[in-house]
């Protein structure tokens, strides 16, 4: 009677342990990662940038160009965020007949982050008759 109970309890204890093994930071070189965390004392631990662009043309035959850039590296000297999050979204609308809309968004994250999450969304419309819409989005991380 006790034996099956013991087996069941062991399984229940092992499952959460297995779950903890997944996710988190993959440590190829734990010493280097710990050193990097240790070297980041006094610095911001995370960095987040959000870049949003909206470009549109409404008039007949009109033209509009937009260029946006977000560069990482505004941290204090010698600091590297441990976690970086970059969000970039842009909407480029050529609504007028024969109009032309161009949009370029470049985002570059800070260097030296242990983990980076990027989120990129673009919405590009050549809605007007014979219109042109050109959208370029780069959401990159520095290694």
């Amino acid at each position, binding site marked *: 009677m006790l034996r099956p109970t013991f087996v069941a309890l062991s399984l229940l204890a092992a499952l959460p342990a297995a779950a903890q093994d997944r996710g988190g930071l993959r440590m190829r070189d734990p010493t280097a990662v710990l050193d990097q965390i240790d070297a980041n004392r006094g610095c911001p631990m995370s960095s987040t940038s959000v870049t949003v662009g909206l470009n*549109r043309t409404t008039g007949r035959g009109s033209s509009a160009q937009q260029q946006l850039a977000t560069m990482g590296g505004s941290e204090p000297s010698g600091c590297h965020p441990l976690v970086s999050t970059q969000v970039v979204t842009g909407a480029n609308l050529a609504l007028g007949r024969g109009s032309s809309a161009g949009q370029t968004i470049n985002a570059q994250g800070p260097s030296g982050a242990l983990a980076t999450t990027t*989120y990129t969304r673009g919405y590009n419309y050549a809605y007007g008759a*014979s219109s042109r819409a050109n*959208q*370029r989005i780069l959401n*990159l991380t520095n*290694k």
Partner: protein
Amino acid sequence: MSRCLRVATFAVLPMLWWGWSASAESLRCQSANGNLNCAGSGGVSCQTVNGRKVCISGHGDVIQSFGGDQSAGDRSMDMPDDEGLDDLPGVRQRPRRQAANPRPYPDWKLIDRE
């Protein structure tokens, strides 16, 4: 469901903005990794996201994609800018569709605008 709702929402917004009624025309949209690219009648729309370029025509007769990884979603990458991508000799160029078909892919949306 939420994806369809988002596509429909962003397709309707320009119509509300424009405000006037036009003759029955169509707006062709393609969604790739959550990025939406639409072209109306006679329009041409090109979108480059992290090196992957997709061009579509409102007539539905020109659909091309250049470079990049189709399966790539949002991820960390260190990718060079693709300025002049179309002119590079080694660039992969994949004309994906060159026939007039309103719905060549499952992720295509054909929206009538009045």
